[in-house]
């Protein structure tokens, strides 16, 4: 039911998000620096706003996104809610899950986190991902879903 309480992600996901944004921001800052060097516009007109925007995003956005992320795995379904400005609420019944992946990117591995990816038979939404889980929690969730599917397979 959509009224069940949502479990939040692991708090360690915030630094993981921050680091990914930092890397991406670095690329953008590099691009802005190139434009600066080429002197297309008056000095500082490009690089300062870009740096200010990046600083704001990298400082504030990860925590905000973390607060808006939650999941629930009761009632035989996986429900993932995320976002505020761009809100989405996805439900996948266990009985529709084809296979489950638990992946760890390099940054996630450093913090002991993992991403659970659930695949259905559909084209749209055929992969639904839940990041920011403790690695052990992700594996447990996977086993729980597997057991559920096993017991219900006709």
């Amino acid at each position, binding site marked *: 039911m959509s009224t069940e309480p949502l479990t939040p992600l692991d708090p360690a996901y915030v630094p993981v998000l921050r680091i990914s944004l930092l890397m991406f921001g670095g690329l953008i800052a590099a691009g802005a620096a190139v434009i600066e060097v080429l002197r297309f516009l008056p000095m500082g007109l490009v690089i300062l706003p870009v740096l200010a925007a990046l600083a704001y995003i990298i400082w504030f956005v990860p925590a905000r996104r973390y607060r808006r992320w939650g999941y629930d795995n009761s009632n035989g379904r996986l429900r993932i809610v995320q976002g505020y400005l*761009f809100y989405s609420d*996805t*439900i996948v019944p266990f*009985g*529709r899950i084809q296979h489950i992946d638990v992946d760890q990117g390099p940054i996630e591995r450093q913090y002991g986190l993992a991403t659970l990816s659930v695949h259905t*038979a559909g084209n749209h939404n*055929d992969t639904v991902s839940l990041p920011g889980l403790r690695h052990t929690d992700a594996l447990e969730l996977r086993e729980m879903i597997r057991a559920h599917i096993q017991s219900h397979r006709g």
Partner: protein
Amino acid sequence: MTEAAPLEAAEQLVAGKKLHPLGLLVGCVKGLPGLIFPILALTFGTRSASGDYNFILILLAVLLISLGFRWVSWLRFSYYLGPDDIRIESGWIDRNARSIPYDRIQDIGIEEEPLARILGLATVRFDTGGGSGDDDASLSYVTAQEAQALRETIRERKSGSADPAGATAEDAPQLDNAAPLFAMDNRRLLTFGLYSFSLIIVAILGGAAQQLDFLLPFDLWDVKAWIGLVEDRGVSIETFDLSARITVGVVAIIGLLILGVASGILATYLREYGFRLDRTPKGFRRRRGLLTKTDIAMPVGQIQAAIISTGPLRKRGGWHGLKFVSLAQESDKETDFVAAPFASMEEIAVILSETTIKQAGEGLDFERSPVGPWLDRWIVIAALVAVAIAGLWFALNIFAWWLLSIPAGLAAVLRFQWQRDMHAIDAEQLYARHGWWREQLDLARQINVQSVTISQGPIGRMRGLARLEFGLAGGYLAFRHLPIEQAKLISDTVMELVTPVDFSQLNVRP
């Protein structure tokens, strides 16, 4: 190394079948357009001192090299029909051994391109239904008989001992004499072609003229030369008065119209010639095509949703198209199975009655979307137009009154779009209607829903509206604009129905 030896010996025991050698020629010719640039480059590059072009020699050389490569690949390609799966082995450096279990093969599609058909060959496609863009295996080219035999064998082995009668009945020759469920005769094709007016050929010719005009002996774009030509014949520019210019303009437009109609008819004929949809014990079988013949099956149990579409003119004539959404992919361009591209609603009703999907009943309560989203779009565009007009007025002192036609026209379009956007839900199915130019009605059974997503953008959030998207195997069905509370309610209702039923009980794959 020693472990590999017994395995290799076992592999050698089962001799795989090779593709037909003539297929090399077909592949070569088919691949020629792709080699046009190297051929041209070599031709120009190897110009002899006296300016001769060795075009023929280069063409032959390139053909021979291409043939050589294909022959080498052909040597290493073999397929084998095992008891449970089909094995395909290929490659010299990159050895590839693929095994496709019969269970995973939805069906065999047989495709006959014109050149292949002349030589009695066909392409066999294995539909594994892994979703769009999957690297499905295919055998090109085998003889047409082999293709049919393969299809029969695989069907037999799929159903195994469970339903031997069903397997052979699937494509028994007597079924060919049975009346098709739906067919398009030449008159229908002509009508279809007329409705498929297409100016694409004009765009292609224009583009070709622009790119290749260096090949022509005269300059295509030199207007003065055209006038000069005319003057030679005693007509001078002064006599080109208004009436003459109008006549020329009208003639040009009529020429374009004729060209559009002709290209539409031609494209339709080539694609849909001999269209027939037959009902088989397991589902449907569809054959069509003039140059490239295709023969595809669609089991009823794998149909996830139906899409009935029409256009502004077609609707007036009562013509609609019917497609099925499933995991099987028809070709690179068309992901849905085309059951009846141009038919009357009665014919479509007949086809639908053979599936598990029900038509939208008369008493069905369709709910319209709120006006909000369309109003927002209009406001944004109108604001931009206002800014543009103001800018032009202050900067250049022009009052671009004609820009006002944009919001006016847009209002009409958006109103149409809003009018046609509605959704409905009954005990078993979901219905979504949308589109103002290309109108579309999506029908799906709730039990086939794989996942549900409720999403909201910032503007939707302001208005309290959300988008409700039901993921299906091979597509989706969406209620595009509805209050978020209602979206949550519908999502819960559908999930209540769907959750207890496990995927294995659905017939998504055979």
